């Protein structure tokens, strides 16, 4: 049995965990980051599409080492094939990036290490320890040896699995309509336009969408997300994707370099992400954007906020839920409104028929919106087809 004492323990070295470890260490806390895989960032479990808008805030400088491709914008396809182009400026970003996620995750972990954090690989938590209702560490294994880590603050960054939080009694369970099952191939030898990330909507991917994110001239991540409540048979997700690819001449000839499965949450913000001695960040806190299914940005931002609060809590000698609640207030101030609005929009989108998607995309393809938000999009549709957005009226109340 190996026993380690530390100030801050971060469980999971994804983007959220590395950010948390970095900012905890920068704040002067003795910080340990544990990761159950043998290699940070690998295997990749991601479509790798991300905007740049949040990077400066998190001290992340775009680096050619982890940029596979920079895109000008996104193309959103209606079920009938009509397409609407959204350039990144309209969406309020500079250019979108398709990552080398394995390199990106390693670069973030390097930042944590440089800031002074310690790292243990092939080390997992299998339970938490508690005293008087406060989380005091974890038990698990490191390279096969029994491990106990005693920590003043634990940060749960264990991704979609989100077990650390549930062991501590935080409710991170999901309704079946708030989860998308996902599958993706990295296809080589295909025809794709590296200038755009493509999104395909409609019954080809019930309650979700199909994406094609180009990594280069003839390689792209081609994946699907399907709402769990709309899945029936075994391996439905795979059949839907395989059938769709087979019908795309430019893609059907491709062969896979890898296959990636997973799930993303599309829920509204959780009521509670903090308890005595424990904060949840990133996917573990269900901070994924309910419309896009993207979680890297919110993961990094929440990781940073939690790392900072952990360091402050140690300096104040107060790891009570009241003190750690500062973190929860901070992430809510930063992203809760958008998450909630996008969740409400998602709730409506998942019910739209192919016909309605066709009409909405046709309308939006005609108007040229200078600035794209859920609000401006809906407003534009409302002007032409008020009947289509009747259902969405509540989202149109304030800009």
């Amino acid at each position, binding site marked *: 049995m190996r026993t380690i004492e530390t100030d801050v323990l971060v469980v999971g070295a994804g983007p959220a965990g590395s950010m948390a470890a970095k900012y905890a260490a920068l704040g002067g806390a003795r910080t340990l980051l544990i990761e159950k895989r043998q290699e940070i960032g690998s295997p990749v479990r991601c479509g790798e599409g991300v905007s740049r808008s949040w990077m400066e805030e998190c001290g992340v400088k775009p680096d050619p080492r982890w940029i596979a491709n920079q895109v000008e914008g996104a193309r959103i396809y209606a079920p009938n094939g009509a397409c609407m182009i959204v350039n990144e400026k309209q969406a309020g970003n500079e250019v979108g990036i398709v990552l080398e996620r394995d390199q990106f995750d390693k670069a973030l972990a390097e930042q944590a290490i440089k800031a002074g954090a310690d790292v243990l690989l092939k080390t997992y938590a*299998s*339970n938490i320890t508690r005293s008087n209702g406060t989380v005091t560490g974890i038990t698990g294994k490191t390279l096969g040896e029994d491990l106990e880590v005693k920590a003043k603050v634990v940060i749960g960054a264990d991704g*979609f699995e989100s077990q650390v939080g549930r062991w501590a009694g935080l409710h991170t369970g999901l309704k079946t309509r708030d989860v998308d099952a996902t599958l993706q191939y990295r296809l080589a030898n295909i025809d794709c336009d590296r200038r755009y990330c493509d999104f395909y909507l409609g019954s080809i991917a019930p309650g979700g969408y199909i994406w094609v994110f180009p990594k280069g001239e003839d390689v792209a991540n081609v994946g699907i997300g399907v709402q769990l409540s709309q899945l029936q048979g075994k391996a439905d997700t795979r059949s839907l994707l395989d059938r769709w690819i087979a019908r795309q001449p430019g893609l059907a000839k491709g062969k896979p370099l890898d296959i990636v499965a997973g*799930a993303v949450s599309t829920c509204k913000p959780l009521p509670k992400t903090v308890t005595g001695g424990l904060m949840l960040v990133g996917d573990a806190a269900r901070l994924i954007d309910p419309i896009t299914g993207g979680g890297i940005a919110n993961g990094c931002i929440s990781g940073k906020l939690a790392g900072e609060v952990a360091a402050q809590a140690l300096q104040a000698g107060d790891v009570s839920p009241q003190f750690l609640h500062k973190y929860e207030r901070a992430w809510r101030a930063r992203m809760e409104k958008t998450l909630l609005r996008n969740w409400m929009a998602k709730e409506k989108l998942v019910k739209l028929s192919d016909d309605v998607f066709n009409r909405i995309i046709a309308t939006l393809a005609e108007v040229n919106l200078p600035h794209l938000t859920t609000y401006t999009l809906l407003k534009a549709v409302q002007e032409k087809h008020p009947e289509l957005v009747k259902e969405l009226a509540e989202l149109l109340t304030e800009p």
Partner: protein
Amino acid sequence: MIVDNNVCLHCGACIGICPPNAMFLYETSTIVFLPHCTECGLCAQVCPVGAIDGTPGEPTPPALRKAGAAAVSGSGNGNGNGHGVEAAP
């Protein structure tokens, strides 16, 4: 509920949605079921590649559950709230 490890991609989707948190990705390569699995079938439904066999109500073989508990209890210590991976009866 049975996981076919020849098909499983170890993505953790099943673990994240399991309502009673009764699964564990052990050593990043083996999914195990814990005794408090309720046989709801959600893990089989979410699995993108169909690696889990079992319909709602179909019992997880007791041997598998026991193996699951044993696999993770070595390090568990019973301090959790019953949703953790400490050895169960």
